[in-house]
């Protein structure tokens, strides 16, 4: 039996594989002679393994379909790892996706398509109504900008803790218990800063506005409002567990559990949830897309493409996105999904209108890694109590220099 190898990111935590299997059942019924192997890899591991495939043609196992953050498309297409999808379907039509997502599917001078969007996330600020009420924070008037968020954190840290025993105003949305480019991007944009020049030729991290944006986000950690780790080494519970007052997230609340007791509790918790656009000037926020791509040396390109279509714009893809609390990537799918969340719909729609994606330049995957390593170092300094604005500025200058060096070598800024 032929087996199609699918590599995915941990989209649904520990339940990633069972959720995938459940939602792929129709596809499997339609392809009875085709086995399906599912590998869950972290982003770090996915990146490493994709490079291993490039560097060692004998590397096993080799995937037939891979999930990648959309901005990796340029990097891996340029390196020759990805199959040009137009070759598998000359009538491939991207019009069902918004223009910003379409750009991230393409690479090279010819604008060939190398990946298709699977599901998307747009960052909003979630809050628990009960927690904000107790702290006297009005979400509409107080959470309109970053200063408002800081004020809310101050009040929550002082009041909410004493009344409920819960300890943190904001939950860290980063599963790495660190801070990443994707976390700080809206803050940097909100300050009028950016990561790269518009032609992608050089870094803008050294600019004051970019620096201030990074400082804004780090303030949440430095002031103890957004803890990275609990004492047991386990992540602190988050807003959706009912243990934080606010959380920046690009996801919707996940599907309700089947068991009656848990379902009722989840329903109650969901009723307490509200959301506002990202609290920065102009509500600029980040739109991310998880794409699917077929490696150029896949032994099952036709079958892989059939699965890719099913996940990107078929029924299974939409139901899967709902199960993991993501938005389907197509305009229609997003629209339908948001109608199921009347309390959150407005914040999400406003955010989608103002959202930006990360730049679609060939080496962006690499540049993000450089930036994130800098963020890791800063987080360690914060944890060790050594982080101040001077050290942050130095780190960003070094990161900018390294990025400029890489851009000068790759010679393909835009």
């Amino acid at each position, binding site marked *: 039996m032929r087996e199609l190898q699918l590599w995915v990111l941990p989209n649904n935590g520990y339940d990633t*594989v069972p959720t995938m299997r459940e939602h792929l059942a129709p596809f499997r019924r339609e392809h009875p002679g085709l086995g399906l192997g599912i590998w869950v890899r972290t982003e770090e591991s996915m990146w490493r393994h994709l490079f291993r495939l*490039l*560097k060692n043609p004998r590397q096993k196992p080799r995937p037939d379909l891979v999930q990648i953050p959309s901005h990796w498309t340029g990097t891996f297409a340029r390196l020759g790892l990805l199959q040009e999808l137009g070759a598998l379907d000359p009538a491939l039509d991207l019009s069902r996706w918004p223009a910003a997502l379409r750009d991230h599917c393409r690479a090279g001078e010819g604008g060939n398509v190398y990946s298709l969007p699977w599901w998307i996330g747009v960052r909003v600020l979630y809050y628990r109504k009960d927690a904000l009420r107790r702290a006297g924070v009005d979400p509409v008037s107080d959470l309109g900008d970053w200063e408002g968020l800081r004020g809310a954190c101050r009040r929550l840290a002082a009041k909410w803790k004493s009344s409920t025993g819960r300890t943190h105003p904001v939950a860290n949305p980063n*599963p790495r218990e660190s801070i990443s480019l994707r976390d700080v991007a809206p803050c940097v944009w909100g300050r009028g800063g950016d990561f790269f020049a518009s032609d992608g030729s050089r870094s803008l991290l050294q600019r004051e506005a970019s620096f201030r944006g990074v400082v804004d986000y780090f303030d949440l950690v430095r002031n103890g409002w957004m803890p990275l780790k609990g004492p047991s080494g386990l992540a602190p519970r988050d807003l959706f567990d009912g243990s934080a007052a606010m959380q920046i997230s690009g996801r919707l609340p996940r599907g309700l559990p089947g068991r009656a007791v848990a379902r009722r509790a989840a329903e109650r918790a969901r009723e307490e949830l509200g959301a506002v656009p990202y609290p920065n000037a102009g509500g600029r926020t980040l739109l991310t897309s998880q794409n699917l791509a077929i490696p150029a040396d896949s032994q099952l390109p036709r079958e892989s493409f059939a699965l890719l279509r099913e996940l990107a714009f078929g029924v299974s893809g939409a139901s899967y996105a709902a199960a993991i609390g993501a938005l389907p990537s197509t305009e229609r799918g997003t629209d339908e999904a948001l109608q199921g969340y009347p309390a959150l719909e407005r914040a999400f729609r406003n955010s989608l209108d103002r959202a930006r994606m990360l730049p679609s330049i060939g080496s962006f995957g*690499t540049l993000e890694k*450089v930036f994130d390593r800098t963020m*890791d170092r800063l987080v360690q300094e914060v944890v060790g109590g050594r982080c101040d604005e001077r050290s942050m500025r130095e780190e960003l200058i070094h990161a900018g220099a390294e990025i400029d060096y*890489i851009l000068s070598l790759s010679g393909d800024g835009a």
Partner: protein
Amino acid sequence: MSSTAGIRESLYGFHKELNHHISGEDEMLSRGLRLIADRVKAERISVFMLAPRRRELTLKFTFHAGLMLEMVEEIHLTEGGPLWKLVHGRKRMQSYSSPHAVLYVPLRWSSGGDEAALGALRFERVSSRKTFGAVEREFAFLLAAELAQNLYRTRVAQALQRQLKRLEALTDLAAVFASSLRVEDGLKLILQGIVQHFELDRARLYLVDREKEFLRGELSVDVRGKVRTLREETVSLEDSSHRFARILKGDSPDSMMKHYEERVLHVPLAVQGQKIGLLIVDNLISQETVAGEDIGLLRSFAGQIALAVDNARLFEEVQALSLYDSLTGLPVRRYFNQRFQEELYRVERSTEPLSIAMIDVDFFKSINDSYGHQIGDQALKKIGVVINKRLRKIDFPARFGGDEILILLPQSKAEDAAKIMERLLGDIRDIRIPVSFARAGEVRLTASIGIAAYPEDARSADDLIARADEALYWVKSKGRDGIATFQDSVRERSGLRRKEAA
């Protein structure tokens, strides 16, 4: 698991099953976690690896609901904190009851007095608050200790295997020198080989120009093996603000480099203390670290590249100065002597071996006398072609006079030189010179070859040549068409002396 005997038996079973053939670290950890899950009641077992520089534990695998998963989690280690103490051997285990039952045990390797912190195992009971009992904790500790021993052994075995593979690759690359006459062809193949075998993103080569004023770009090879010329890149060696110039001068690199020095390796190419170029390899796109053990190999290989590049460039210079013999295409004696002296200076300061071989075409005078000088010249010409083709790029042959040829063989002991000469002799034997009036319609060639090695046989150029000559005449005395080292001839003479004494 309550009785001591039961624990011992289970541990033994774990030890046995873990010691089956395992191809790598990931497979070992994955099998280890499954086996541990059979023995300890926990809903989730995770293995964390220590990233010492980053002072954190990074999650590698989690075994959950019968599935092995890669998940994202990192634990920052605060110096003196409970998990820091655990990882560094100052605490046997650490458990928590909130938010659910959690137990950490260390992954530490120890042997004799040596110890290494590798990481930690975490056991979780997510849906129950039943904490891990004393016996369970102790058992988990012992299982982790066994896993750590195997993990360390697997890492060492993998590193050795990788090293071996790389060494083989370098041997292959060295052969590249022998098979390419043009500098650019050789460099291209070498850079491609380096990128492929060391699994790098890119390799770049810059060479110092003849006037020693500029460092000029030559070639760049990317992860797909695609070659790009760097001819447009020129760096003044006087420009101390340029990183490459500073590195070549031996100055400390700029502070900007500190964050990515693990992903870029700058290797100056030097011959006899003179910097002739710069090899740069990097993993800047993939952002992977260049492995520590590879750095040493690449640095030593750079010595060979430098020598080959230098030889190739000297070849071009010598051609320009008419130091080549027009008949054989080999350097002339005067040039050989100069080169030989330089090589001797070099080996005197290092521990590298050096050999020379002297070749004499058998019955060359008879060929000339019987078939004429034209056929004799043809024979020498063909031998010249064979020598240029067969030798390594670092070897240096010369027409020493008449039908005598000398070959300088750097980095070769006498026995290595003999192997190279075996192959060369084979090629000489295959030479056919058509001569219509000869009885067989052609003339075949053989040669006698004598080898002497520095410093065993002699330490000066003249003495080494004399020893090679002695070995050559010993071959001739034995019937020609063969190879002998000077030590071969000594052994026979001392054998004869022993016979006479007896």
